[in-house]
């Protein structure tokens, strides 16, 4: 079990460096085991350094940098042992447009092997989808699904524009 865990950690670490560097356009990242403790009990330490910046603690990273680092780590785990589908619920919320673009480019590559379901309020994420489902509450408190053709922008506006919470 210890051997399997260490092998998994090494595989995840290798992926983490690559995924991080793609999403951050450079920089470096690492995963380390706490020293002098049994690997099956040790703290797993995450280090992340965006391009050109000095290594600071994870806490000092910005909201968007933290989100992108967490996404990099989750994708690194997934690459070691892919799940059949992956659901992403508004993970783009703290990201700027450029980071959303890199994130979507990576998802499109993975989508040959994995089914992705994204939940979003962001137009870029909608445009990256193969198919769009609108959820509406024409009657308050009652959800209904509307299948939205990506070419029918008017329809999309209706679904999105539908008033408040």
């Amino acid at each position, binding site marked *: 079990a210890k051997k399997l865990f260490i092998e998994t950690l090494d595989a995840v670490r290798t992926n983490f460096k690559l995924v991080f560097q793609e999403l951050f356009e450079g920089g470096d990242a690492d995963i380390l085991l706490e020293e002098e403790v049994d690997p099956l009990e040790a703290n797993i330490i995450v280090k992340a350094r965006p391009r050109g910046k000095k290594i600071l603690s994870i806490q000092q990273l910005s909201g968007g940098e933290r989100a992108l680092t967490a996404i990099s780590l989750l994708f690194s785990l997934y690459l070691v042992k892919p799940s059949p589908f992956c659901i992403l619920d508004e993970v783009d919320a703290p990201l700027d447009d450029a980071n959303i673009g890199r994130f979507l480019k990576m998802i499109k590559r993975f989508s040959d092997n994995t089914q992705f379901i994204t939940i979003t309020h962001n137009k870029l994420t909608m445009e990256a989808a193969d198919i769009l489902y609108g959820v509406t*509450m024409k009657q308050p408190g009652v959800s209904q699904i509307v299948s939205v053709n990506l070419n029918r922008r008017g329809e999309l506006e209706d679904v999105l524009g539908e008033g408040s919470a």
Partner: protein
Amino acid sequence: MHLSKLQLLGFKSFPEKTELVFNKGISCIVGPNGCGKTNLLDAIRWGIGESRMSVLRGSRLEEIIFAGTRDYKPLGMAEISITFDNHDHAVPSGYDEINVTRRLFRSGESEFLINRTPCRLKDITEMFLDTGLAPGAYSVIEQSMVDVILSDKTEDRRFLFEEAA
């Protein structure tokens, strides 16, 4: 393996029989705040065996069942059916298609079915055990996970690594 269909009846904000068909590739779910998007994610999780109410955003089990609105009466049962395409036999069963159904009644009673055959919850969770779809693993990524995966408390992070091993 991939998700091919999700059917809801009486689950959270979906009182009426509702069906979503998924393709391989990227599906995107959109709609205003509070319209039911995350509820669809909860439905998928619950259908494949998640039972922790903290994850399903409720305090009592019966909060899964449609509670009624100003214009609709509450219902007595929540039912989720999920159909998987298993042509690649990621789940080592003989079936090319796997249908999982889970019901909860207000009495607290539950029913579970795999391909229309009654079974226990355990049979459903064990079936998905080696597919990366275990509850709490990395196949569902939401905003709140960012702090979890980067926090100082390492147990949640460790759990994800063990899932990938």
